[in-house]
């Protein structure tokens, strides 16, 4: 079973770190049926920083949850590397999240009873594997937390807490990192720091990151932006800037208004 093997992020057979193939997610049925995702096809290349954008209710969070193995799809399949998530049991999904996926949430990212360092190594501790200490040290020093590792989350600022979360997501060198509005709770300066760090992780460490955001400025840090509306991918943008993102959003709004 591949999920039990140690992560092998650099096998070059396949260029895609994750993909959704014909994915639909439907809540309820009949009259109350809601299509959160409607036949979505998308793939995420290795070493790329992708942002998923869209208005509330567009299905962007649902897409991320499905990609990350936190939610089940109604139709279609999700691939992380070569693994089809629909074939996995609950337990194996958990192990996949632990060993092959990294997470950054908007808030409440850290376990309050554990120190910053313990939070960073948590997935590996849960797996019972010894972290790669040199790598962990490098990640910690890169995010500038070297003198904060023994602090508890409630002794850290919001920005510091989020940097711990990013470190945790990177520390186990997962195949892919999912970030759900990682800067949503931060002021713009702190947010910029985090985003910059995430971009460096992609550029310098070859990490694959998928980030959900509704902030054009945040999205501009990505290599590629995909736009969702009503559960469908409606547009895509490469090498975005805040302005191009904003323009595309505006035009999508106009399109929708005209329809």
């Amino acid at each position: 079973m591949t999920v039990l093997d140690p992560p092998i992020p650099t096998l070059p057979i396949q260029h895609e770190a994750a993909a959704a193939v014909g994915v639909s997610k439907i809540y309820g049925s009949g009259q109350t049926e809601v299509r959160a995702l409607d036949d979505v096809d998308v793939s995420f290349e290795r070493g790329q920083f992708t942002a998923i954008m869209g208005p509330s209710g567009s299905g962007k969070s649902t897409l991320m949850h499905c990609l990350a193995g936190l939610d089940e799809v109604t139709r279609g399949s999700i691939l992380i590397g070569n693994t089809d998530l629909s074939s996995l049991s609950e337990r194996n999904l958990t192990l996949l999240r632990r060993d092959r996926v990294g997470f950054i949430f908007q808030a409440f990212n850290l376990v309050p009873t554990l120190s910053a360092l313990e939070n960073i190594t948590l997935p590996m501790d849960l797996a019972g594997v010894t972290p790669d200490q040199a790598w962990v040290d490098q990640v910690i020093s890169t995010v500038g937390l070297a003198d904060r590792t023994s602090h508890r989350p409630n002794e850290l600022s919001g920005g510091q807490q989020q940097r711990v979360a990013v470190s945790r997501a990177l520390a186990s060198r997962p195949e892919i990192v999912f970030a759900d509005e990682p800067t949503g709770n931060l002021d713009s300066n702190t947010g910029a720091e985090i985003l910059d760090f995430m971009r460096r992780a992609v550029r310098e460490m070859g990490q694959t990151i998928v980030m959900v955001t509704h902030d054009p400025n945040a999205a501009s840090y990505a290599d590629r932006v995909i736009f969702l509306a009503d559960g469908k991918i409606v547009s895509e943008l490469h090498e975005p800037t805040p302005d191009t993102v904003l323009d595309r959003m505006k035009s999508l709004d106009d399109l929708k208004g005209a329809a």
Partner: protein
Amino acid sequence: MFRLTLRNLAANKARFAMTTFAVVLGVGFVVASFVLSDGLRSTFNDLSEEITDGTDLVVRPVSTFGEPIPLDEGLVAEVNAIDGVDLAVAFTDAPDNSVQPIKSDGSTISVQGPPQLTFSWTGDEELGSFTVVDGEAPDEQREFTMDFDAAEKHDFVLGETYDLVTPIGIEEDFTLVGTTRFGEDNTTVGATLMHVSLDEAQRLWGTDGTVDAISIRLDNGADTAAVTGVIGELIGGSNVEVVDNATITEEEAAEYNDGITIIGNVLLGFAIVSLFVSIFIIYNTFAIVLGQRIREIGLLRAIGANSTQIRRSIIAEAMLVGVVASAIGIAAGIGLAEGLKALFGLLGADLPASPTILAARTVIIASILGIAVTVISAIAPARTAAAITPIQALRDGGDETGNNTGRRLGVGVTGLLAGLGLGAYGLFGSVGSTLGVISVLGLAAVCIFLGVTLAAPTIADPVTRVISWPIRKMFGRAGVLASENAARNPRRTATTGAALMIGLSLVTTGYVVGESLKASLGDLIEESVSADYVITDQNDFGLTQAIADDLTATGTFEAVSGMRYEEASLQSATTDGQIMDLTAMDVGALESLFNVDITQGSVPADSSSDVVLVHSDIAADLGVGVGDTITAEFATGYSTDLNVVAVYEDQTIFDVPIVPDHVFDEAGVGLLDDWVAAVLADGVTLEDAAPSIARVQAQYPQVSIQTSSEFQQSFEEVIDQMLVVINALLALAVIIALIGIANTLALSVHERTREIGLLRAVGMTRRQTRRMVRWEAAIVAMFGAVLGVAVGLVFGWGVVSALPEDDIGGSVAFPMVSILRVALIATAATLLAAWLPARRAGKLNVLDAISH
């Protein structure tokens, strides 16, 4: 506001369900205690009436001290001759279980259960309360009857012959000539009731020419007072009295009621311990639930509710929980009464069938206790909630960690010291009455429990870390998180653990006291007894002196002596008469059998004169020494001067004066030996003696002949049995505490939903999640166990130290293996109890949990 109260309860149903359950168990136990004792009381009151029904007057012997002297049989005819007396019959009965029928398979009916009672047949069904159902009444030698229920139950067949164990040994070939019915419905409450003829009764229990009582039925319309007067004149003297039916009925009932009241009060005591434990559980539930509602309460305050309204609404909530829990508890108690009865049955003490009586008093007391316990528990959380400010609605409601830990520690230590002081006063001071001592010690225990609970949060963090060290090592990150979670809210952990502490500390106390008694007893027997055999009867009614004679006749023994106890009034030159027990024995055998440590005088070579050996305490009381004289007056009126020949120090065996056998014989008191001791002749081993012992044993099956070490063991078994009963009754308090731990964990899991969601998202498996919750529960339980064992060891040490040293006190033993075993069992049970909250934590939907 009241509508809000109801809504809150409805919204938190599950959370309050466990709290309710804790109160239900406590209240149920209280109700069960009352229902059980009321039912038994009613059964025995009916029985007492049945026994005395149809009898108008009873003539019986009385005495101010000692055993009353039986009536002369000739008196029966004289009473019968009195005008107005329709019929007077003689009546005599054997002590409980002194007559036992032997079944055809050679076994006897167990003496552990209801008693086997044998009476003389009065010849009159109304006066005797018995009717022959089948066959005929016993009127010849070697005939007996049995009540039909017992005959059927124990397979005794009408017309067959059986051997009987009797006070004079085994008597063979008694024919079961009839089966009888007691009263209307044969309400024997399980006893085996037998009859023999009066002559046979007098022969079997060696009371020729005397009877125990005369039952009298008057002529219709006879003047009871007048006849009573005539009989009074006839019997004269102060050693006989005539009493009416009502008096006898009342006395019978009172005798049973005393025993029932003791059982009832003991059960009630344990019930109150259980309720006390519930207080901790309820307090915790309210504190946690309110902690989670800080925002909601802040909002209420913001929109205009004042703090009094908040407090009242919470108290009302508690009151409702109390009312519902008490109502369910009262219903459950009725069932629990049957459960308790079954428990007694399992422990070898069968209680008779009794009606279920739910008295108004029971309902009132149970309701008051149930509601009071719930409301009292909610007062502190309600006050905290009332102090919530509107601004807190806007902030995140975090853990309700104590900001006044210092003050709590101060109050806790004060309470602890006050409790210890009170305990010392109760144990070593002179409180006086037993009830007073129990009250003082109870209050001391409450102070200590509350004090420890208040002080415990201070040590909860370090102690749980030490306790959880192996868990951290064994279960990796899940173990570490379990340990961190147990330590993160010390007050919660302390209160939850404290609930378990109470039960376990009492169990530990029991073990320490029990084990210390065993150790002391062992020491005492070793020091004071040189006898090789101790012979006792199973029911404390006494042994025929023939047993000592038969043992002597085997030639195996150097010395054999029976010990008889009888009250006498003792008077010295300087003191007035004091009524106390005397022991009669073969004084010549004293020093072979026992080591009484004679400090003055010596045992006389010739004990045929009237001499007495006195313990130094009594010698001091009476102001006598060797050479002085004590005048003894017995119940029979016999009086003699006893010459003090020795004073001894060791009161293990004899704390009462010892006189030679002939004194009792001449006084006409004490026909039966209370027990017998025997020491083997030189060179004879226990193995050599075995055949002779077996022969004597076969002749007297109701007697237990034990070597001194067996005798010690049987004492130890009694102590062990008592510990089993105490532990069984404390089990409920422990169970309530375990429910409390599970409840707290369920609340904590709810509170930490997001955190658990996060852990699951980053890869904690369900199994690891369950493990984390379960081991947190176990750590809390172990913390409670550590507190409980510590408190219990102190309690036990205190109680043992308070016991008189030369009597039963002396050595303190700490049976740590048994104590640790109980602590481990409690911890294991906690792992089970936490199964539900652990499962819930494992099943949390990750996405829902994260966005909680």
